[in-house]
């Protein structure tokens, strides 16, 4: 019963946070969308060649984007929210706007780490922007454009923990999402890997003192630490490099150049920086420049 109560308390607190963050950046009219207003290109459909996926999406006026729903700051959707918030959804809005699609016409679908490739292959989503690290293996089955953001694996611990860096992990219980690369990395460092289904479950285990630390990309950990700064902190230097990319289906290789160009343009006109400041930037990190993007083969 106590569990139910405290979960309710957490949910209420989360809701309050979501509402206050909505209020903080509620420049968008109509109230349904939040985050940054992105200028929609109304004549987009005419600027793409016939037969391309971009033309098809622009003509239909609809796009389905897969994002994370459980990573505050990156991609997060509370039970009562209409749309997810975070840096990834903001990038999605920027890409959709270049096709002339308004934020309200984007269908957001939750993708978890396990189903990102199948969703792209089966066409259940048009794009995946879900803290999706670019790797050679993934590029064998799906397309990944970018990177649009660089981060690295770090550790989230309870304040005052004796874990200060990755070297202190030997024999410690460290949680992350089951099957993730982060978990493999700490296993290689001699930690006992503890996989959970979601990052929030993992965070609960750290807060309850059941496991010693949580590990994944620093960007995600900063989001959690920002929600509970009295109890949790991010420690150590990043010990891996993750390059977040935008996933698309291999059936439409022409999307790569469009994604790359759109991100470059967003960086030049400040939309990228605004998107960052409204989301991840709130944890106090400096707004980065758009990293050098891979060329489209």
């Amino acid at each position, binding site marked *: 019963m*106590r*569990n139910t109560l*405290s979960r309710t308390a957490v949910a209420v607190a989360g809701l309050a946070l979501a509402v206050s963050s909505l209020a903080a950046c509620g420049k968008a009219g109509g109230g349904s969308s939040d985050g940054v207003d992105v200028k929609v290109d109304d004549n987009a459909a005419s600027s793409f060649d016939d037969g391309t996926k971009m033309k098809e999406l622009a003509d239909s006026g609809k796009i389905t984007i897969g994002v994370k729903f459980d990573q505050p700051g990156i991609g997060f959707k509370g039970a009562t929210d209409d749309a997810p918030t975070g840096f990834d959804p903001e990038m999605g809005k920027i890409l959709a706007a270049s096709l002339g699609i308004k934020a309200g016409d984007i269908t957001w679908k939750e993708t978890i*780490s*396990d189903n990102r*490739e*199948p969703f792209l292959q089966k066409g259940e989503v048009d794009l995946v922007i879900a803290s999706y690290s670019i*790797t050679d*293996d*993934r590029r*064998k*089955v*799906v397309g990944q454009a970018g990177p649009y953001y660089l981060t690295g694996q770090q550790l989230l611990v309870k304040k005052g923990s004796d874990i200060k860096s990755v070297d202190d992990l030997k024999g410690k*219980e460290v*949680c992350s999402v*089951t*099957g*993730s*690369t982060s*978990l*493999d990395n700490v296993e290689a460092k001699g930690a006992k*890997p*503890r*996989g*959970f*289904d979601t990052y929030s*479950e993992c965070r*609960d*285990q750290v807060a*309850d*003192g*059941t*496991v010693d630390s949580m590990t994944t990309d620093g960007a995600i950990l900063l989001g959690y630490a920002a929600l509970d700064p009295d109890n949790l902190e991010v420690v150590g230097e990043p010990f891996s490099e993750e390059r977040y990319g935008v996933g698309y289906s291999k059936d439409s290789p022409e999307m790569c150049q469009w994604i790359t160009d759109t991100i470059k343009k967003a960086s030049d006109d400040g939309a990228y920086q605004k998107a960052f400041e409204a989301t991840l930037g709130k944890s106090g990190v400096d707004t980065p420049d758009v990293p050098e993007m891979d060329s489209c083969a």
Partner: protein
Amino acid sequence: MDDVFSNFDLVLKAFGLTLELLVISGVLSLILGTLLAAFRVGPVTVLARFGTAYVTLVRNTPLLVVFIFVFFALPKLDVQLPFLLKGTLALTVYTSAFVCEAMRSGINAVSVGQAEAARAIGLTFGQTMSLVVLPQALRAVVPPLASVLIALTKNTSVAAGFGLLEATARMRGFTNNNADARTLIFLIFAVGYIVIVEVISAGAFGLERRWRAAR
């Protein structure tokens, strides 16, 4: 793909944990389940009611909820247990309700006439149970118990989302790292589960044959 074969020790270790979960919670469930069945068919009303309540409550609760209770609620009540213990606890609590009902069905399958006849030829209560009722009851429970244990084998995979690096959790790691070989990795791990289940089936079949009575 090479990733799986060059790290095959990890696959075996993961199935080792699956087996550990299966064997420990299997044995504990058989003991606890048999005890509960004894409560339910026994003459002591309080125990019988307890047995009925336990089965009603646990059998109607999804296994995932039992896991969530053990892994998320207990730590909030300041009960800290090792992960393997928590996993076996959740599986045992759940499975023993099903073992209890399988056992009870076996005991009920022996007609009252058997016990009455045993008493009529002068056997004591102990002799009646050990020589007449239980052998027949055990024979009847082999098929349903095998089903319960097979279900338990597959249920161990729920632990993948609760900090235990058993076969399913390891499989998710491999599929995450080898997006191009998902189907093959899935099949390799499926074969592992099939082997375990087939061993249980074969054991049950062997017992059935050995205990077969001429009718």
